[in-house]
Every structure is written in structure tokens, then in C-alpha cells.
């Protein structure tokens, strides 16, 4: 059977999916990145092989997320796309007349506005990460509630408490304050969901023309409290796709499918890469006062990629000359 692999290496989670020729999901793996993107990709590949028992022939690979470059070097992906485009592609594939995509991931949140099947506007959070997955995780842990149940608590509330949502630190102190005053946990959680939605709409969604159909994706879409708070604030039905947590990876796989159709081949290195030894080393370039920390990616002791330099002089792999004496 033929399939296309999509890999989304994000700050918090690393997701891998295989889709078939019709764009249907065949297998998915959702892992925590834990600051080790290479290991996460390798582990994910192993799990995919187990899930599919090696019966799927990979015809093309696409990567996305903040670790997209790294993942493409390891797997030989032909398509390397930013997460805004991949999320939009995946949403469009599922719901062709979608006009708004709300996406909240581990450390970033974005809004994508589409009209007639193309992206017309987008925004990502810039100065604030309040309301993203990491913050909700942290609050769930603090309240001793499993994150999976966090949202259902919110639905039980009848009188939500107003929580400041402008900043994660203020939101937390506000929540603690409300707890000390004796408010119900359910009401506080619902209040928090509303505050985060308010913050999202006033910050990332500022000035954006939000029209239905609205799709909500990313890890946080699993939180039914957040979904309800969005519906309440927008007055539209909010659709959470079945595979909302891996939409970026699905989009990357869909784009890989298109690219392979155009190009006719893939540079996929095979599932064996999960057994290859990768090593990362870094050095500080002394060419100018920027002192960039340059990263080397080694595969079996050979440098296969290098980045982190502001002036691009190290990107070229032939440049193995001494690390000094080179000026920008």
C-alpha cells in the first residue's frame, strides 16, 4: 500500500502521520518533543513502523513545525513548509468551505483567515504565550486535574468567574486569588477558558474578520471547555476535527503528495533512519561580535547540516575551514 508521511516537530509535541492517496489518515503518532527533536522523530518513525507493520510504502515526505528543517535533514523530506500553510491545507482538505482556522498549540497560537479556498490573512502570537497549551498544562497540574479532564470541568460551571487573561503570570495570580476566596473550581476553570479565548481574540485575532465555518485545531482543541468558550464568544459553531492534534502533520503529508506528483520522486531515506546515530554539536563563531552559536548536525560523524549563523557563511557545508578568521 502506498502512503505519504507528514512530520510536525513542534515545541511541545512531535506528530507523525501517514495518509493514503485520497488524503485519508492511515496512522498517527503523537509524542512529546521534550527538547529532543531528533530522538522524537526517530521514536515516532519506530512507532509508525510498528503501527503499520511496515506494509506501507512511503512515496513522499513533508515536514513542518519549528523543527521542520531538522526533521527534513534526518528523513530526506522533499517538502518543508511553515506551520501556517500546512494547517490551512489540512483544514481545507477536510472542510473545503472553511473560512477561519483557530489553532492553539504548545507554545504558539495562530489564526488563519481563508476565503474561496485560499489563505487571505493570518497572525501568530508575538509577545505573549498566555493561553497556549503549555500554560493550560501547567494550570491543570497545579489544580491537580488531568489535562484531559480539564475542559469537562468548565462545562459543569454555571457562573464563570472573571479571570484576567492578558498575561499568563497575571492569570495565574488571579486564579489563585479567586481560589483563596473560595470560588468553585469549575467556575474558575470556565472563567479561565473564557479569559484565554478573550485574550486570543483580542491579541492574535485582533482586526481579523472571523466568519464561519470555524475550525479549531491544535492540541488545545481537545479541551472542550475552550471549544465552548470560543462558541460562546464568536456565536458560531466551532468544528473540532477528529485528528485536530495532528493537522499540521496531515497538511505536510498532503503537500508532500502534491510535490511528489509534480516531481515524480522522493528522497525519503527510509524508516531505517530511526537506527542511525545522529549527534549535534555547536560552536561559537568568532567572525564578528554577533558570536552566533552555530549548530552542526552529524550523521555517523559526518556533518550533514549546519545552521544558526546570522550571515549564512556556515550554511555552506564545504566551509570546513577553521572556525576563526572569517569575517561577516
Amino acid at each position, binding site marked *: 500500500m502506498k502512503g505519504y508521511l507528514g512530520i510536525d516537530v513542534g515545541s511541545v509535541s512531535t506528530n507523525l502521520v501517514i495518509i493514503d492517496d485520497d488524503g485519508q489518515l492511515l496512522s498517527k503518532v503523537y509524542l512529546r518533543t521534550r527538547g529532543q527533536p531528533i530522538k522524537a522523530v526517530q521514536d515516532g518513525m519506530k512507532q509508525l513502523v510498528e503501527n503499520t507493520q511496515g506494509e506501507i510504502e512511503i512515496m513522499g515526505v513533508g515536514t513542518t513545525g*519549528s523543527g521542520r528543517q531538522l526533521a527534513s535533514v534526518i528523513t530526506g523530506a522533499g517538502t518543508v513548509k511553515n*506551520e501556517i500553510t500546512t494547517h490551512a491545507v489540512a483544514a481545507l482538505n477536510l472542510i473545503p468551505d472553511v473560512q477561519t482556522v483557530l489553532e492553539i498549540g504548545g507554545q504558539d497560537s495562530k489564526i488563519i483567515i481563508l476565503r474561496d479556498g485560499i*489563505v487571505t*490573512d*493570518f497572525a501568530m502570537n508575538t509577545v505573549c504565550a498566555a493561553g497556549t497549551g503549555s500554560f493550560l498544562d501547567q494550570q491543570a497540574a497545579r489544580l491537580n486535574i488531568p489535562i484531559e479532564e480539564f475542559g469537562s470541568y468548565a462545562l459543569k460551571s454555571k457562573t464563570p468567574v472573571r479571570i484576567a487573561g492578558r498575561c499568563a503570570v497575571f492569570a495565574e495570580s488571579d486564579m489563585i486569588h479567586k481560589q483563596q476566596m473560595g470560588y468553585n473550581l469549575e467556575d474558575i476553570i470556565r472563567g479561565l477558558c473564557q479569559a484565554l479565548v478573550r485574550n486570543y481574540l483580542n491579541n492574535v485575532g485582533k482586526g481579523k474578520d472571523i466568519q464561519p465555518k470555524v475550525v479549531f485545531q491544535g492540541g488545545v482543541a481537545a479541551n472542550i471547555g475552550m471549544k465552548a468558550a470560543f462558541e460562546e464568544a464568536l456565536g458560531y459553531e466551532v468544528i473540532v476535527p477528529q485528528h485536530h492534534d495532528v493537522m499540521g502533520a496531515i497538511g505536510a503529508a498532503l503537500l508532500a503528495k502534491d510535490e511528489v506528483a509534480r516531481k515524480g520522486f522522493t528522497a525519503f531515506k527510509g524508516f531505517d533512519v530511526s537506527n542511525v546515530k545522529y549527534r549535534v554539536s555547536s560552536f561559537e563563531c568568532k567572525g*564578528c561580535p554577533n558570536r552566533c552559536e552555530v549548530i552542526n548536525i552529524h550523521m555517523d560523524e559526518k556533518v550533514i547540516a549546519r545552521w544558526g549563523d546570522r550571515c549564512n557563511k556556515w550554511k555552506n557545508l564545504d566551509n570546513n575551514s577553521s572556525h576563526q578568521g572569517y569575517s561577516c
Partner: protein
Amino acid sequence: MKITYPYVGNSHIVIKNLLERFGNEVVVPPKPSKRTLSYGTQFAPEFACVPFKILLGTYIEALEMGADTIVSTGGVGPCRAGLYTTLQEEILKDLGYDFQMITLEPPGHYLKDLIAQIKKLINRKMSIREFWSIIRFVWEQLKLFDETELMSFKIRPLEIKKGETTRVYREMVDLIASAQTVKELREIRHEVNKRFENIEIKENYDPIKVGIVGEVYVVLEPFANLEIEETLGELGVYVERSMFLTHYTINNAVTDLFHIKGEKNVKKAAVPYFNEMCGGHGRESVGHTILYAKKGFDGVIHLSPFTCIPEIVAKSILPAVSKDYNISVLSISLDEQTGKAGLRTRLEAFVDLLDKKRQKFKERMA
């Protein structure tokens, strides 16, 4: 007297020539780097904008290199830049540096003061004729820098070998910097043209066109905008910038002297949205966006320093312009962050958006 001044784009070379020919010893400010920014953020007020921080850091670096005089421009507000030199002088003196600050105010407002300040910068005897020949040389040099940069914007999206344009551009900047006479500049101009013509380019490729608008420092200094023009060019985008050093000089010195409102057409274009001046380049950002839309550009990128009031005003007006003129606008707020990855993600997505939009438009026309 050892003079130093702010670092913006390639202007440091021109200013060095000017000041040296006026009989001064010059400490050329170092190109802004992470070190500059860490000095700046350490000693500037937390919510000062990134240009303030970079300039403050630059002054500290230059004072450490032995400068004892700083020359910079003032302004008449309401943008905070008009007060930069005063505040920076206070901060640096508190840090224990001993130096003189020379502030050049716009001539239309404070001509007498300006002449007095300029006199301080001329430290040798020269004839009027000599004076004008110096002015002519530095002006020609500044013009050639701008022309060369403009050429790099045109060629970069078309280049076949990634990074070649940037390499040639940097070589040409060094070459222009080495010129001593107007005649040499003329020869170098030929060389620049030849070198850019020799870059191998894609045929029949119509690049996405993006205009860059916003606050002057972050638009003009690549360090402040994380080399956005280079990044876009290498993504295959033709970039045009609303401001160049030569325009800036004319608009802020020459036209101001004769009380002519600079960039008349830009301001006029902005009027339906923005009738009052709000300082800085807020109104110009709106005006230029409209002009780019009229010129058929695919999109506009709006750069603003985090906490910059004039650009915040512009930012809140731009969605209306974007809707009325059907031009996509991406607003980017810059501060002391040095992470290029987040910016790159947004730029890639923006270029994807523009590309799809253009395809769709073509399909409709066909």
C-alpha cells in the same frame, strides 16, 4: 575631538567621509551586533524602542573605542526619537562617560541652532567651492549605495545560485566605500552594473512583489529587521522599500528647510485614513501601503519597533486599507529578540499566501 554617530545601513561610510573631509577625527561606529543590543537593553528604559536601544549600545561601543563626541539627529515629535539624544546623553553621563553630544535639529524649525551645531563639525579652513565639492562627493556616494542596494533587490529573487547576489552586493559595498573621488565613483558604478549583470538569473520568472513600510530605523538597518530583505529575496520575492537614505535626507533636511511638506503624494494618499500627523512615519506607512497597492504589488510588510506609538496607530489603520485596496499586509513588531525562526515562518506563510492569491487571480482572469 573624536566624533562618532549612529549606524544605519551603509550611511556610516558616507558620514565618515563627510566628517573626515571637514577636518575631524572619526570613530566609525561598529556594525550593530548582539553585543550592541545587550549594552542597549541593559542601560535603556525597559519600554524604550529597539532603535533607541541599538543606538545607545552603539554609542557605548564607540565611546569605549575612544570617541569623545556624538553627533545625532533630533526631531520635533510627537515620536520619542526627538528626545533620544537628550535621554541618551543623560544615561551615558550617569554611566561616567565624558563626551559632548551634538544634536542636529530639522532646519525648518531650528535653522540657527542647526548652523551653530554644524559649525562645530567643521574643523578646518576651506573655501565654499571645496565645501560644495565635499558635499557633492558624499551625496554621489550615498546615491550609489542606494542604487546598488536597489539592484540587489531586483536580482536576488531571480538568482539561480542562492546567496550569490548577497555576496556580490557585499563586495560592491566595500568597493564603493573605498572610492575617494567622484570620478572613481563613476568607474565603480560601471563595475557594479557589470557584476550584477553577470549573476546568472532565471528567465521568464515574475517574482512576487512586496513593499516594506514602517519606522525608519528598523526599515533601513538590516540588523534591526533581522535581514528581512535578504530573507525575502532568497524566498524569491522582489522587495521594494518605502525609504532610502537619500530620500530620507532630502525629506528631512532639504524640504524641511524650505517648509515644503516632504513626500507630498504619500501623505496625500494617506489622507482619507489618516488626516493628522502622529509623529514618526505612521502616516507614511499608510500612504506607502496605498501607493504599493496602486502600483500592483502583491503585498506589504509593515515593520514597527515594539511600543512605537506612530506605528501602532498605523497598524490599527492598515486592516482597513488592506480591505479597501485588496492588498495583503503583514505587520511585524520588532524588539530585542534575535530569533530569526519565528520571523521566517511568518514570511514563508505570507509568501505562500501571496502566491496562492496571485494564482487564483490569474485563474479568474483566464
